[in-house]
């Protein structure tokens, strides 16, 4: 049975995954419990993502060859020296992939953090304050979402020009609206809950209610959405680079590596396969993680036995 004993200081709610936990101390303790409760699948996801991130960070140290300079015969298959073979210019694919990992991971984190910050704040404000602020934010969100994701990214990159930072801006503009929506609807739902009204009735200021009572729960929902943002960011960056408007060669990114490999696909398919598998693996890991997180945060989505 769920008990909700409400005092303005400490709304104590017993079931951590079905009711928001308010004070930060309790939230911290909950986070540590998370690791124990994660499903095996999401743990695998965490490991995969972790490994790739580490590889990306250590890439300059790990890369056996110069990613930008030819180091062997062209279009060679996997071998002892070149584990993933060489590309159309004779450059080591493994080294290029390691550097490419840096781009993917960096774009992922930058876009996700930006979307969380922008989307989180705007969504919270819109949901909590309502009124004109909500109307404006919602309308802008709706307009941005009227353009399908890939198209928006293409249009913005076409306008601003290529390059990693423009890609980040374009992707953030595409993902933040979704985050705003998610956070806003979560905030709206929570605003009406009895424990928030009780806090308000006892005289807690609105800011206090926002930070201590609503935010912790919304954080969970936002985190889950964050994993999806991360996955999308990686996929979109790869797509834009593949199309030739994202990160341009010779700087390696998994997307443009696949694009460059197209001309010689029948001769050396591995040039396309390795980067493609890498993208799939990374995104799969993120999705495993996201699914697992969602099961923890939102019990309505839980698989009931």
């Amino acid at each position, binding site marked *: 049975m769920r008990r909700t004993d409400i005092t303005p200081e400490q709304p104590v709610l017993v079931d951590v995954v079905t009711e928001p936990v308010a004070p930060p101390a309790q939230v911290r303790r909950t986070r540590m419990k998370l690791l124990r409760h994660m499903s095996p699948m999401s743990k695998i996801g965490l490991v995969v993502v972790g490994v790739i991130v580490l590889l990306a960070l250590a890439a300059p140290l790990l890369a056996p060859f110069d990613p930008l300079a030819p180091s062997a015969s062209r279009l060679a298959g996997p071998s002892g020296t070149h584990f993933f073979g060489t590309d159309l210019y004779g450059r080591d694919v493994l080294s290029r992939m390691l550097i490419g990992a840096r781009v993917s991971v960096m774009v992922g984190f930058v876009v996700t953090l930006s979307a969380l910050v922008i989307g989180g704040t705007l969504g919270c404000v819109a949901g909590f304050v309502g009124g004109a602020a909500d109307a404006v934010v919602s309308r802008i969100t709706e307009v941005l979402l009227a353009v399908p994701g890939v*198209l928006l990214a293409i249009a913005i990159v076409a306008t*601003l020009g290529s390059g990693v930072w423009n890609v980040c801006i374009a992707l953030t503009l595409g993902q933040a609206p979704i985050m705003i929506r998610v956070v806003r609807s979560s905030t709206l739902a929570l605003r009406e809950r009895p424990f928030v009204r009780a806090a308000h009735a006892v005289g807690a200021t609105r800011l206090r209610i926002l930070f201590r009572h609503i935010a912790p729960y919304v954080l969970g929902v936002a985190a889950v959405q964050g994993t999806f943002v991360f996955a999308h960011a990686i996929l979109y960056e790869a797509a834009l680079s593949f199309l030739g408007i994202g990160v341009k060669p010779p700087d390696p990114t998994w997307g443009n590596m696949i694009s460059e490999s197209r001309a010689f696909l029948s001769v050396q398919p591995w040039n396309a396969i390795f980067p*493609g598998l890498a993208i799939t693996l990374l995104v799969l890991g993120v999705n495993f993680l996201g699914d697992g997180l969602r099961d923890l945060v939102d019990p309505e989505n839980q698989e009931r036995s």
Partner: protein
Amino acid sequence: MVTYIVKRLGSTLLTLLLLSIGIFMLIRLIPGDPVVAMLGEDATPERVADLRAQYGLDQALIPQFLNWLGNVVTGDLGQSVPTSRPVADLILTRFPVTLVLALFATLLTIVVAVPMGVAAATRRGKLTDKTVLLTSLVGISIPSFFLGIMLLLLFAVRLHWFPTFGFRSFSEDFFGSLRGFVLPAVSLGALYLAIVARMTRASMLEVLSQDYIVTAEASGLSRLRIRYRHALKNALIPVVTVVGLNFGALLGGSVITEQVFNLPGLGTLLLASIDRRDYPVIQAIVLLISVIYVVINLLVDLLYGFLDPRVRYAKN
């Protein structure tokens, strides 16, 4: 119900208006002089002045916009910069290919994904369910261009089941043309399929746990009847919404898929235009696809209201 429709229509129109303002402003966001960017550094001053006048870039902002909007609504989407051909013509020639691709992918998706989702839900926890779940996860993780290239490699290059290049128009060779759309439709639809399958499964699971299913069982109705009449009818309602909302992903993805398979659709036109700095075309395509997406969302919204009797015959 009627007031609801009117309100939604009004809201949609406002969104479209703001959208067109946004797209209009896009051209003005280009670093530097947009006209020079379009024509290149070595354009003659007369040509530059000409184009500026043509875009009304020498006028004030609001009359410019209204002028452009008026043109758009009457079908004049401007002229392509390099060729001076009307943009509308260009789009009209390319549009059918994109449309066929999108529809083919949608059809494939619905026909496969819905049964998949239902099968997974009714065999929950068993092998079928786990397979569907895993396949869906892979489906949303694999980049569509990578899938496309792999499909090309396997089915076209190695097995020769499908053509690699050489798109044929329908008037030339109907079935050959259709064959040429199979691999693109599959690679485009994979993501869509995964999303719809997951949604169908979730929705079906939710419905199967409802009280009215127990009532149906208590009435001694057969399992098949309960599943496919009592449960599915309810479960499909949110699925319809998801299909509509994600159609945008399909439209956007078609740009990528057209590039992979070299199909002469709006997507390849868009990318070529970006290369050529042909901004009127870019504007027009983005506007067109967005409008289609918005309209579809509106229709899906209204359809949902129609399908769910609780909304259709709401008491107040």
